[in-house]
């Protein structure tokens, strides 16, 4: 039911260094997955590779999204198919307002479907933007600020979720969205994601810490180490990790129990 993102035996190198060594994962619309793991395990590499970052070279395996092989596909095409990445470090684009940017993103999508499309009417766009900003408790003046320029960590993350709310992807990957957030910001962001989620949205939450999972409750939890997913389970797996750290997993691996 719904589109699926299937990652099959994915191998990825960066500057000839193998980082992902056979990742297998399936995320469907309507599901919430969490991906955890120590630093350097390859979580961000996976996120960026899924979106098609040119620095990441796929040396083996497949990425199938909604039945389509993504590997040869440009980043913008993947986006228009319904894939979204909420960045860990959103980059600033000076001189481009949040509103202008969002409107262009919407138009890019709709024009791809219909080359004659003239662009979303401004009143409709404004209504949409205000509605979503209210959802995320964002000040309306946000739309007039230059994208990510001078934003606090919390503002950047909320801007990512705002984009997600406007672009309505099928599958969203959230790369360490909780990093740099204080308790209140975390709550607001999580509530936003919760409100967006439903049968039409599949979410892959990539995180280092368990606490975001108190707010965004996953059905599936996966743990990544050294470029592979070494353990999968339900939400209790995250709690176990919180109590015991990653050492028990490393021991398990060394003892060949995996």
């Amino acid at each position, binding site marked *: 039911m719904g589109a699926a993102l299937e990652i099959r035996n994915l191998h990825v190198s960066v500057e000839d260094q193998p980082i992902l060594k056979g990742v297998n994962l399936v995320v469907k619309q309507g599901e919430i997955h969490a991906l955890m793991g120590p630093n350097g395990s390859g979580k961000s590499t996976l996120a960026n590779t899924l*979106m*098609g*970052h*040119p*620095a990441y070279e796929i040396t083996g395996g497949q990425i199938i999204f909604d039945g389509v092989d993504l590997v040869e596909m*440009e*980043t*913008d095409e*993947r*986006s*228009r198919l319904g894939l*979204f*990445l909420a*960045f860990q470090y*959103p*980059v600033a*684009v*000076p*001189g*481009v307002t949040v509103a202008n*940017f969002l409107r*262009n*993103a919407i138009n*890019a*999508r709709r024009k*791809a479907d219909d080359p004659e499309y003239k662009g979303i009417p401004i009143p409709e766009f404004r209504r949409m933007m205000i509605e979503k900003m209210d959802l995320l408790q964002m000040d309306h003046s946000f739309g007039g600020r*230059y994208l990510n320029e001078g934003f606090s960590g919390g503002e950047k993350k909320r801007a990512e979720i705002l*984009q997600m709310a406007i*672009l309505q992807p099928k599958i969203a990957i959230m790369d360490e969205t909780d990093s740099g957030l204080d308790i209140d910001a975390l709550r607001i962001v999580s509530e936003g994601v919760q409100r967006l989620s439903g049968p039409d949205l599949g979410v892959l939450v990539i995180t280092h810490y368990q606490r975001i999972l108190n707010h965004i409750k996953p059905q599936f939890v996966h743990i990544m180490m050294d470029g592979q997913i070494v353990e999968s389970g339900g939400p209790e797996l995250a709690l176990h990790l919180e109590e015991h750290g990653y050492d028990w997993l490393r021991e398990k691996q060394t003892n060949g129990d995996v």
Partner: protein
Amino acid sequence: MASDAEHLQGIRERYDEQYGFSDPDNYVFRARKGLDAEIVAQISEMKNEPQWMREQRLKALEIYQSKPVPTWGPDLSGFNEDDIYFFVRPADKEGRSWEDVPEDIKRTFDRLGIPEAEQKFLAGAGAQYDSEMVYHRIRQELEDQGVIFKSIESGLREHEDLFREYFGTVIPAYDNKYAALNAAVWSGGSFIYVPPGVEIKMPLQAYFRLNTANIGQFERTLIIVDEGAFLHYVEGCTAPTYSSDSLHSGVIEIVVKRGARSRYSTIQNWSDNVYNLVTQRAMIYGDASHEWVDANLGSKLTMKYPSLYLMEPGAHGEVLSIAFAGRNQVQDAGGKAIHVAPHTTSQILSKSIAKDGGRSSYRGLLKVYPDANNSKSTVVCDALLLDEYSESDTYPYIEIEAPDVTVGHEATVSKVGDDQIFYLQSRGLSEDEANAMVVNGFLEPLTKELPMEYSIEMNRLIQLQMEGSIG
């Protein structure tokens, strides 16, 4: 209904009458290349000018001939004086056929939404663009306010005293070689006078009178904004504009009197055969202010440094400059702020972009005279390089001779970040759209100062440049 040819003929006749080109029965005008006293005298004769003007022209010619070609900037050795027509009657100007207009230029016109009649005109394939109807109504409103907005020739003919009082006082012929050239052979341009306290709400556009004479090689414009008045003047257009003339040397003089405010916006997109050397200067008096908004998109080589002379306390001036250099283009632009009086302020903001091996540079001067104490100036020049082949240089000259002055100078060079492009693409924008967005964002602090239609056209033009659809 008159045929096209008859209609065109009719326009030419009315035009000659309106803009003062007389054609004495017994005078035979022979157009020829090169420049000498005979040609200069002919120009003055054709325009029926008073003796003093003719003498000024001839003197200016001497000055022009005595000055060497400047070598402090880009290479100007590329064109030969003997190969240029320094004066051509507008009706004799050579156009080109619509079939010869390059496809990418035609596509640009379509993408910019330019009506067909204008397209032909801009491409050099039409004799004139007759916007007489629109212009007429506006002219009436202005006349009612006592505003003078005429061709430079009419200015001289109908307002000789006013004209003579100011002409050549802001930019005298001896200022530089090309000012001298213009002073000798000027033809076409605007003469504007705004009476004290009059605020002209909508931007005045030379565009209204855009016709072959006013896309002059040697345009001369003189603007006087009297005390407390307000004027915004716009010239040029973003669309690629063809000129058969390879040398453009314009002079723009502006006098901004006490308490007045003015802004002069230029958008230049000349065809790539043109050398565009322009001297622009504003004399700004007590508590008055002036802004130059200068966008250089076309031409083979442009050298242009709009200047602010801050003459009395309280004077303020700004230069907002955009330069875009594509393949085989050199944009050498910037501004000059000359603080003559104390308690004066200036700001220069320059944004230059280079692509496909183009060369886009900032060249500017900040000069503070000994008496200009307690003055303040800020210069910001940002360059954006879009690939490894393009170049941008910065030549800031700073001469401070007063003891207590606040000066700020910042220069940045950046390239479009791969991370930015990836980020924008991840939202569904194609690579070209992403590049265009970054470039438009880079220019935004300046484009938002342009009248809306221009800034929209500018954004679209940048988009097209990014797609590489303009050669």
